[in-house]
């Protein structure tokens, strides 16, 4: 289990991370969210021990992570490989740095290249590979040593749908194997599909943290979605109901079921026949935009 207890980090007068606390259990995936400069990377660098905390402590299985360092697999947002080095040579290097023997590393390289459908690139120089295939190599570099804690920063950026699907399967496998995963991304649908728990950072502080379903349930409103229609819009305007329009849909924020029925009754009273309506909790995107902006 990874535990961050009240960690803070300052660069001169600039507070990068302020009093952040969170927990990620074994087999759990935490979605780390926030705008650019929110403190996500600083938090990750403190977990990786690349930056020291000014305050607070980071624990792994109850002990300080510096003294009880787990095997960490890190896929950074800014990615790169040794362009002039062959795929096999650099993967072997990355594996050996993690304490894997050369023999074991060679075996793992073959397995991973097969798993990601790129065995033919084993002896090619990294610079000869496409961006998507380079990204696969980077993922192998992060996972080749069978890490206990996996930190993935924007893992799907720049991938085509086929590669996205392959990568999703790999991440799912890691979760099933009981790995502790931190997933940082700006793509809300990615976070929603993998993470049951989220931590939203803003200006270095945690502004939302916990189980995603609970957060949505307790968020205070739901969205009543109706098909865009002139008649409906006219009635909503006359009745001063606040709504928003997006992609041919009218979205009305309602606090509870009875408020939703009030709107629906209002439409019924004005003889508007509704073909369909949806009553859904706020999306992670809604929450993110609302809380951060």
């Amino acid at each position, binding site marked *: 289990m990874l535990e961050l207890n009240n960690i803070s980090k300052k660069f001169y007068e600039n507070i990068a991370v302020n009093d952040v606390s969170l927990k990620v259990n074994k087999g759990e995936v935490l979605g780390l969210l926030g705008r650019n400069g929110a403190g996500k990377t600083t938090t990750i660098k403190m977990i990786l021990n690349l930056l020291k905390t000014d305050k607070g402590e980071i624990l792994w299985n109850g002990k300080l992570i510096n003294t009880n360092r787990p095997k960490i697999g890190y896929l*950074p947002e800014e990615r790169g*490989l040794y*362009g002039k080095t062959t795929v096999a040579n650099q993967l072997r290097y*990355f594996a050996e740095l993690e304490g894997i023997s050369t023999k074991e590393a060679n075996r793992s390289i073959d397995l991973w290249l097969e798993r990601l459908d790129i065995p033919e690139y084993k002896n090619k120089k990294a610079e000869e590979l496409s961006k998507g295939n380079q990204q696969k190599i980077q993922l192998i570099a992060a996972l080749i040593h069978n890490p206990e804690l996996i930190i993935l920063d924007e893992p799907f950026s720049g991938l085509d749908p086929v590669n996205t699907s392959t990568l999703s399967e790999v991440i799912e496998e890691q979760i099933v194997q009981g790995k502790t995963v931190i997933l940082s991304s700006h793509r809300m649908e990615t976070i929603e599909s993998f993470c049951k728990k989220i931590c939203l950072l803003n200006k270095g502080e945690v502004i939302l943290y916990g189980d995603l379903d609970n957060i949505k349930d307790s968020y205070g409103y739901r969205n009543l979605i109706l098909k865009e229609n002139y008649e409906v819009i006219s009635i909503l305007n006359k009745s001063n109901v606040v709504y928003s329009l997006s992609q041919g849909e009218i979205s009305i924020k309602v606090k509870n079921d009875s408020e939703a029925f009030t709107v629906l009754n209002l439409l019924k009273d004005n003889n508007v026949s509704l073909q369909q309506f949806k009553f859904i909790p706020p999306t992670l995107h809604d929450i993110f935009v609302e809380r951060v902006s």
Partner: protein
Amino acid sequence: MNQFLTVIKFHFLEGIKSKGYLVIMSIICLAIIAGYGIVNYNSKKDAKSKDKYVVVNTTQFTIDEKTIESTLDDVSIIKKSSMSYNEIKKSLLDNKSKGVIVISEANNIPQVENYSISRPNQSLTALISQQLQSKYVYNIIEKQNIDPNVAKQLFAQVTVKDTQVKKEETKDTEKTFGIVYIFVFLMYMFLISFGQGLAQSITAEKSSRVMELMLAKVKPLTMMYGKIISTFLMAIVQILAIGCSFSIVYLLGWVSKEKMPLMGMNLDVSELSITIIIMFLIYFFLGYLLYAMLYAAVGAMASRIEDLSSVSLPVVALILGAFFIGMTSLHDPSATIVKVGSYIPFFTPIVTFSRIVSGAANTFEIATTISLLVVTILILNTFASRVYLNGVMNYTEKFSWKNFKMLIRKD
């Protein structure tokens, strides 16, 4: 320790397998072997073929052509009693002779006329006129019945002895010039090329963003020192390759220990002692370490390869300063600038070493400069490590020296 060795092994193997390194090393080694081969071939060819000179002597004053031929080993003399101008011209134009020397008499005094297409052979003319002069003088002495002892006194040579007065007891700079030059140049070249190579590889790791991946796997300082040592090993391999090339040249008998011409200089290898080689290795290693740390810091400061040349300018200036003072020490190892430079750690590796070869540095100077160098390296280690640590994680668009304060801060 395992990680450190893994980093060294990876960067060393990748480095020596790189095309650039192999091409440069091959060119240097081939240039040494081919260069000496050509020089050796030409000298042998020159030894075999002698230039023919016709000497037309119509006087009573004879010359000793055997003495001349033994003194000038590239000259062969053909004696003739007469030759017309047209015959002389034909002989020269048909390349039958390199020159024609006509000895005639005017008022019983011998005179020499030199005919040639290119410049006349001054050594040959000098030897012939010297012999004629002597014959003429003895002729006069005989005619005038001068006492042979008086004649002997008349021919007594004025002796000239050159003595160089030195401030310090140093070796003959003429003898050590070649070795000092080669080692100063070698050290300069290696510091510049391998230091720059180190900085470039660090900046490349940063700009390609592979550094981001690496930072999670290995401590930045392990990476920095691993790269420094692997680059040093690459330099050693290149030095060994150069040494092997010289050994091949030596074993083939193309050069001797006493006479190893190099870039127009005579490299007297017999002046090389074990102490000098050990001193070279000590100063080379410490010098490399000092500049490698500076270059590592510089490499970490730049985010793009294009920025590297401007960021590394202060380091290049220091190496150039050391090189120029080292060059001054070739002729005058006791000059004040050389003495002072010897104690400045950034100049010590090149300057003190050249003073050691010249015999100008005493044990106290060697001990003091090495101590100062080690202390500087230790101090520099603290700052270079901080700059490296902060630099590799800092991706500013363009490096500005204003950011330097931020880079040396302690995390």
